[in-house]
C-alpha cells in the first residue's frame, strides 16, 4: 500500500472511536467510517498535502451531519442503545449518563467537544474540520461543557455532593 493508504488505515481505530461517540450506535458508526473511507479512497488523487487524519475527521463529521438530517425525518430509527435501561449503577450508570449527556448536545457542539477531548485535536485543527473560526470552536466547547455539567448535575442530584 502507498503512504496515503497507510495513513488512512492507521487512522481507522480513532475514526471508529469518534464515530461511536458521535452516533452512540455501533452499526451506524461503522457505516459512517466505511462511507468515510470509501470517499477518501475515491478522492485520493485530490489529496495533495496536509494531514490525512484531519481530512478524514472532516469527511466523517460532514457525513454524520447529513445522516442526522435524515434521521430527524425518520424518528423510528432512534438507536435502541439510547433506550432507558433502569437499575444500573456504578460505572455503567456513569457511562449511560455521559452518553445521554452527549446526546443532549447540539451536533456541532458535540463534534467540537469530542474532537478535542476524545481525539486530542488542537483548536486550530477542529476549526479546520468544522470549517469555522477558532472563536466559534471555543464557544461550542464552552456551551457543550456547560450543558453536560448541567445535565449530569440535574440527572444525579444525590451524587453531586459526594465528589
Amino acid at each position, binding site marked *: 500500500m502507498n503512504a496515503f493508504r497507510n495513513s488512512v488505515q492507521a487512522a481507522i481505530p480513532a475514526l471508529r472511536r469518534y464515530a461511536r461517540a458521535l452516533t452512540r450506535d455501533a452499526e451506524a458508526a461503522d457505516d459512517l467510517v466505511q462511507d468515510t473511507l470509501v470517499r477518501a479512497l475515491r478522492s485520493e488523487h485530490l489529496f495533495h498535502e496536509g494531514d490525512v487524519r484531519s481530512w478524514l475527521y472532516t469527511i466523517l463529521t460532514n*457525513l454524520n451531519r447529513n445522516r442526522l438530517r435524515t434521521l430527524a425525518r425518520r424518528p423510528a430509527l432512534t438507536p435502541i442503545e439510547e433506550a432507558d435501561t433502569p437499575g444500573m449503577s456504578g460505572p455503567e450508570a456513569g457511562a449511560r449518563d455521559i452518553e445521554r449527556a452527549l446526546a443532549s448536545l447540539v451536533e456541532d457542539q458535540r463534534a467540537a467537544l469530542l474532537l478535542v477531548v476524545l481525539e486530542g485535536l488542537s483548536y486550530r485543527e477542529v476549526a479546520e474540520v468544522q470549517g469555522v473560526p477558532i472563536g466559534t470552536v471555543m464557544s461550542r466547547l464552552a456551551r457543550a461543557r456547560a450543558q453536560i455539567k448541567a445535565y449530569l448535575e440535574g440527572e444525579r442530584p444525590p451524587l453531586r455532593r459526594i465528589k
Partner: protein
Amino acid sequence: MANRDAPILEAELHAYVDGELPAERRPAVRAWLAEHPEDAARVAAWQAQAELINARYGAIAQEPVPLRLDVARLARGERRWSILAIAAVLAAFVLGGVAGWFGRETWAGAVAGVRVLTADAIDAHKLYVVEVRHPVEVAGTEQAHLVQWLSKRLGYDVHAPDLGPIGLKLVGGRLLPGASGAGAALLMYEAPSGERFTVYCARADGPESALRYHAAGSVAAFSWVDDNKGFVVSGPADRDRLLKIAQSVYDQENTPADKKPG
C-alpha cells in the same frame, strides 16, 4: 506580570484544560484557580467530563478493526462497484452539498433508507427460509408467471436472476409489504445442500449506493441501491459466498439483454 490581577477569562480556563494555553500564562491561571474555588470547581468538572468520555469510548480504538473497514479490501472491492455506485453517490453528494437540491436524497439519506430496507429483508428472509411447506407463494417452476405477477403488482420490472451457474435453483417468490406501504418482492433460491438464499427488491429513493455487508447473527446480507430499486441478498453468514451471489444478481440487473427490448 502586568496582567497578574486581571481576571482570567473563561476562554482561558478552557484553553488551560485542553493544553492550549501558552506556557507563560499557566502560572497566572493556576494562581487564579487557587483563589477562586468556583472556577476551580468548573475546571474540575470539565476534566471529569473528559475522563468520563474517554472511559466510555476510549477502548473502542483498541478493538480489532472489522474486516469491512480494511483499506486494501475497500480499495479493491470498490473498483468493481465504483463506476455506477460511487460516482453516482459522489455526484449526489456534491450536488446536494452545493445546491441543496437533493434534500432527502442525499447519500446519508440513502444509507439510512438502505438500512431500513435491509432490516426488512433480513426479517423476511428469516421468516420464510425455514418454511418447509409454503416457503413461497408462486413456485419457481412458474417463473414466467411469477415475474409477470410481481412486476405488475410492484409497478416496475422484476427479474428472477439466473443463479444456476453458481449452483442455486429458484424456489419461487412472494409479494411482501415494504416500507411506507409500497410492496416488495422476495425471491428464494436453494443450494443443493439445502441452504436458502433470498433476493429482496423494493423501491428505494436516493442515488445508487455502494455495496454493503450486514451481519445479523447467523444470517448476513449484501445490499445496494441501483436505478431506484433497493436489493438485498440474504443468506447464511458466509461473506465470500454471499458476495458472489450478490455480484451475480447485480451483474444481471445491469445487463441490458436481461431486460425486455423496447
